[in-house]
């Protein structure tokens, strides 16, 4: 239940809040705000795979696509390979720097009937996105409404975000971005691109292009807690299954399917630029649990110092008493 707070999350939130308060740095949100992020609900049962969302995405975001400078700078050592999608801009059967949304299809049996299920796939917009949190330069950002996006003016194209993403969503284009102005031969390799859920349109009060263009009203958008309630109601009504509510600790892209997701995952084509539909544990949880050790460390250190100090003080005093005798 979204409203419930587990003992662990209470403890984690408490440690973070204490540290934030002690540091005097204002934070713009608290852990409880997760449900106030904006999420999308995708009713896969309605999707007919027409591709209107993919087309609308390409059209609306065309100005954000890279125009790389060629020839690419020679990179050292040879292990760093350029990735060039600029000549393959029409590829739409996978994620690329020029295609942030594609339709995955799965041939499955629903109620004894052979059926092709189509699934719009793009960034899941995790509630605690590892691509943003583990970016070493702060070029990946999470907005307060839960959108995660990569700043093309800051990204160096190291592709760490892709490696830490459970679905390997971000895609790289070489020959563009800040790295060209620093040490193009030795550091960086372009810019990473992915769905930014039309953050600029949302800021203007518009719908993301994929939602607006869909003739079947597959997607809807709203506050996460409301979307989760709707997803559960829809799943109950259709005997469906939910994906994205708890994956990677929770995402802002909630799928409801008439077919279990482990069955769908076996039926879809996965691989480079084609994300899976497996269950995903929280990528950030293990490290965040280690923060307890950081909270205990100063107490342990000070206790050890006091213990050592009194041990030596007693020895000193005993020595002095012996001398006096």
């Amino acid at each position, binding site marked *: 239940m979204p409203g419930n707070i587990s003992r662990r999350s209470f403890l984690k939130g408490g440690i973070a809040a204490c540290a934030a308060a002690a540091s005097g740095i204002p934070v713009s949100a608290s852990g409880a705000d*997760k449900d106030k992020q904006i999420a999308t609900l995708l009713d896969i049962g309605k999707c007919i795979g027409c591709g209107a969302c993919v087309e609308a995405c390409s059209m609306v975001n065309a100005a954000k696509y890279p125009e790389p400078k060629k020839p690419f700078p020679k990179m050292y050592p040879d292990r760093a390979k350029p990735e060039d999608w600029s000549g393959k801009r029409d590829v739409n059967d996978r994620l690329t720097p020029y295609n942030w949304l594609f339709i995955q299809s799965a041939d499955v049996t629903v109620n004894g009937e052979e059926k092709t299920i189509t699934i719009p796939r793009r960034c899941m917009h995790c*509630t605690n996105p590892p691509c943003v949190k583990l970016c070493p330069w702060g070029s990946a950002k999470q907005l307060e409404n839960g959108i995660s996006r990569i700043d093309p003016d800051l990204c160096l194209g190291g592709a760490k975000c892709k490696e830490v993403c459970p679905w390997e969503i971000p895609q790289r284009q070489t020959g563009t971005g800040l790295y060209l102005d620093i040490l193009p031969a030795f550091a960086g390799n372009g810019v990473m691109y992915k769905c930014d859920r039309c953050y600029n349109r949302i800021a203007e009060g518009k719908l993301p292009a994929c939602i607006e263009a869909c003739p079947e009203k597959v997607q809807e958008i709203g506050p996460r807690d409301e979307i989760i309630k709707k997803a559960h109601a829809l799943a109950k009504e259709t005997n469906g299954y939910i994906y994205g509510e708890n994956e990677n600790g929770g995402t802002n892209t909630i799928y409801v399917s008439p077919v279990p997701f482990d069955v769908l995952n076996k039926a879809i084509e996965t691989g480079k630029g084609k994300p899976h539909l497996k269950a995903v544990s929280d990528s950030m949880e293990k490290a965040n649990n280690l923060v307890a050790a950081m909270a205990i460390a100063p107490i342990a250190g*000070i206790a050890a110092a006091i213990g050592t100090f009194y041990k030596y003080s007693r020895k000193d005093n005993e020595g002095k008493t012996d001398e006096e005798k």
Partner: protein
Amino acid sequence: MKRNKNVYYLYLLTIIFISLSGGGQMPIFKRYYIADIPGLGWLARFYITHYVHYICAALIIGITSYAAAGYLLSAKNKLNLTVSGYLRSALIAGLIATGILLVIRNFEGYIFSHNLIIFLDLSHLALVMLFLFTSLYCFLFKKKWTAS
């Protein structure tokens, strides 16, 4: 004396691992074949370097607290920090402060402003570079933390 040496060796080991795992937050060790060196493959695995960095951070905080409390308690022995001791202490304090804020940022729902995140990332990196160069200088020229 033996106990102090143990703390010193633990401190050295922690500095080595926290620096390596900190460097491993950037995608450089694989590109430059360093992760191909036997025993260093973990440096190319971002979640592993993340965990190692957190564990070492807890150790550094513990050791720093131990040293700071010990210094304050033994003030009557007229143990004074040297100039390089003050410099290294300030750099460690800066690293811990920026590190704590980055740790908070990594919790779900804690969204700092973009400029603050960039500042924290770059200042953490700049502070560690300064600290390592200062430590190397102090090691080569036998500069001590304290003088009695």
